């Protein structure tokens, strides 16, 4: 006997579980089709959205999509749910919640207070009833501030990760790309390298080089080598200059197992990073990356749609007070997000869900060459995310990551967002840029900025 049904237009639609309602109500994307859980027609999708709109938010507390006993992420979500914070919306259905979120009177303070009372499943559910403009309108009301050596998330500002990857981890090559990025005023969120190998001595050398560069120019930012959490623990033990501990996380215990990570390991890593006390204006020491499709690609999705699982990954992230959370939205390939339309939608959903859960949510606006997308799609998504007040965006030289072989934003694009939309860098970094002569009095890039930096690097 189906649990959920609705009659519409002379037809009856039934759904056998809450997870099915969620999956069928999700805007179309290739990953849910690959998993065999997507709506089979447009009308079935809207029927599921009608069903979802009428469900009480409390349903998600009573019926976990993945069993409490079977999954430590579910246990984390249930055990840390703040009933008092949830009270203002406890009586609402998902549809009423959407209406409430869109009200002018529902301001940033109300959303911040509500955040601990929301579960990832509630946030994912309401996002499925929202159009792109709704996702932007609500997300931009939420202010999330995080800090280490720079303060991120302040009003009127957008941060940036400088990603100076090199296919062979060549140190001079990485420094060259870093200097290039700094000359475009990029890097206030983090200067973060994805190493080409998972080799610990290489990671240590990279950390040392980045830290030397930071200290030499006295840059108020943080550096990171994006290696496995167990490597970072090892590196901390060896006395390497670890600012941020990085880890990829997903929304189920089984998918995290595929990443070789548990909640206990993340706690240990956060404790170790904090023990170094390297932050100056704040102590948010964790950097997480996520992306829709991670659980399905690990065959660890429990029949739950990829967007809901992505929101559950944010449930993991928020337990560890991160400086940065980044959805690598188009990286995973067309079998999960097929084209520019699906990537743009997913980027806005991820940002909305992360923000509502109180996270410093950024995005790697990106795509691979076998995806039906191009730089025009990235232009649209970055502009929308900047308007939605994204915490930070990622940029690489000329939008071409020569190590990971995909396209992200160019350093130029961060300058575009700041020049055209009037957004600024983190305040400490902004002051440094001015002192270095990299930006002029208006905050725009200075004409001879690169030359000055290169002379200083000699």
């Amino acid at each position: 006997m189906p649990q959920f049904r609705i009659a519409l237009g002379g037809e009856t639609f039934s759904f056998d579980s809450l997870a099915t309602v969620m999956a069928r109500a999700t805007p179309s994307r290739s990953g849910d089709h690959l998993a065999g859980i997507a709506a089979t027609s447009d009308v079935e999708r809207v029927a599921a959205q009608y069903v979802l709109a009428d469900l009480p938010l409390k349903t998600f507390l009573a019926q976990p999509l993945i069993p409490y006993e079977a999954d430590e992420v579910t246990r984390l979500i249930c055990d840390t749910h703040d009933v008092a914070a949830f009270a203002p919306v406890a009586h609402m259905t998902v549809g009423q919640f959407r209406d409430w979120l869109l009200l002018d009177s529902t301001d940033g303070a109300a959303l911040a207070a509500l955040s601990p009372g929301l579960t990832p499943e509630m946030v994912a559910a309401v996002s499925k009833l929202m159009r792109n403009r709704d996702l932007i309108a609500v997300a931009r009301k939420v202010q999330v501030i995080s800090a280490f050596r720079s303060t991120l998330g302040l009003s009127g500002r957008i941060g940036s990760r400088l990603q100076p990857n090199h296919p062979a981890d060549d140190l001079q090559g990485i420094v060259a790309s870093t200097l290039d990025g700094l000359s475009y005023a990029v890097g206030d969120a983090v200067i973060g390298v994805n190493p080409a190998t998972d080799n610990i001595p290489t990671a240590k050398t990279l950390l040392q080089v980045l830290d030397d560069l930071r200290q030499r120019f006295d840059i108020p930012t943080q550096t990171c080598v994006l290696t496995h959490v167990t490597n970072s623990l090892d590196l901390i033990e060896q006395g390497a200059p670890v600012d941020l501990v990085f880890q990829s996380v997903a929304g189920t215990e089984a998918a995290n197992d595929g990443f070789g990570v548990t909640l206990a390991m993340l706690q240990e890593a956060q404790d170790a990073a904090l023990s170094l006390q390297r932050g100056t204006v704040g102590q948010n020491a964790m950097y997480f990356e996520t992306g829709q499709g991670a659980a399905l690609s690990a065959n660890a999705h429990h029949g739950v749609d990829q967007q809901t699982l992505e929101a559950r990954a944010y449930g993991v992230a928020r337990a560890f007070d991160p400086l940065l959370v980044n959805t690598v939205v188009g990286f995973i390939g067309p079998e999960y997000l097929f084209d520019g339309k699906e990537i743009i939608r997913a980027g806005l959903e991820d940002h909305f869900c992360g923000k509502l859960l109180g996270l410093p949510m950024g995005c790697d606006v990106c795509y691979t060459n076998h995806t039906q997308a191009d730089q025009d799609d990235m232009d649209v998504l970055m502009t929308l995310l900047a308007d939605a007040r994204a915490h930070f965006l990622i940029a690489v030289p000329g939008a071409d990551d020569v190590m990971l072989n995909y396209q992200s934003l160019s350093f130029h694009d961060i300058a575009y967002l700041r020049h055209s939309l009037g957004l600024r860098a983190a305040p400490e970094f902004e002051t440094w840029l001015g002192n270095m002569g990299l930006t002029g009095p208006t905050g725009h890039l200075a004409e001879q900025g690169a030359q000055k930096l290169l002379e200083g690097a000699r």
Partner: protein
Amino acid sequence: MTTDPWARLRWATPARIGLGRSGAGQPTDRMLKFQWDHARARDAVHTSLAVDQLAAKLAPHPVIVAASGAGDRATYLRRPDLGRVLGAWPADVAPGDYDLAFVIADGLSATAVQAHAAAVFHACAARMPGLSLAPVTIATQARVAIGDDIATRLGARLVVVLIGERPGLTVSDSLGAYLTFAPRLGRRDSERNCVSNIHGQGGLSIVAAADRIAWLAHQALRLGLTGTGLKENSPALLDG
């Protein structure tokens, strides 16, 4: 004409550093260069394999033509599961008893396969005089694991899949080779050995690739395994 302040650093990385800017945008020539590179990568993904041309280049070795369960490129990109299994397989092929089967799969770059696969095959075959080779299978809309299905039907102890790799902006014709001992459905990636980046723009040369593939094939047949148990950097390989 101003001097390029990045000239001193440009050699250190293939990254697009020191592009200059027009306002906050990329200068026109740099922007067009990026569009050109992306267009080439896109075309490499979507170009169809010219099967007859490839078969002619493989002569005199006999060729079997097969297709995966993904009927077209759009399906192939959305459904990796269908690209791993056979859709069409000629009814008149009887299983034999072979040491080795070569499978040439279009993968994500038919351009790479068209450019390098036949030469790599011939170079490998010349290094395997003692081994019995099955007919070469050309498989379209195919992923690496389709080799398991094909080798099972041919009756081969080892399969080598030559496949087009996902194109990057700089290199869009890179070929990869995957070796799997005792191939059967459900083999994991950790049970394969890979020789990647076979191309002419600073990648592995055809001769070097054939040396490595032939060495791995002989070792796999001798030891009865591929994957993490078969280390590619063994002294035997370095000794030549």
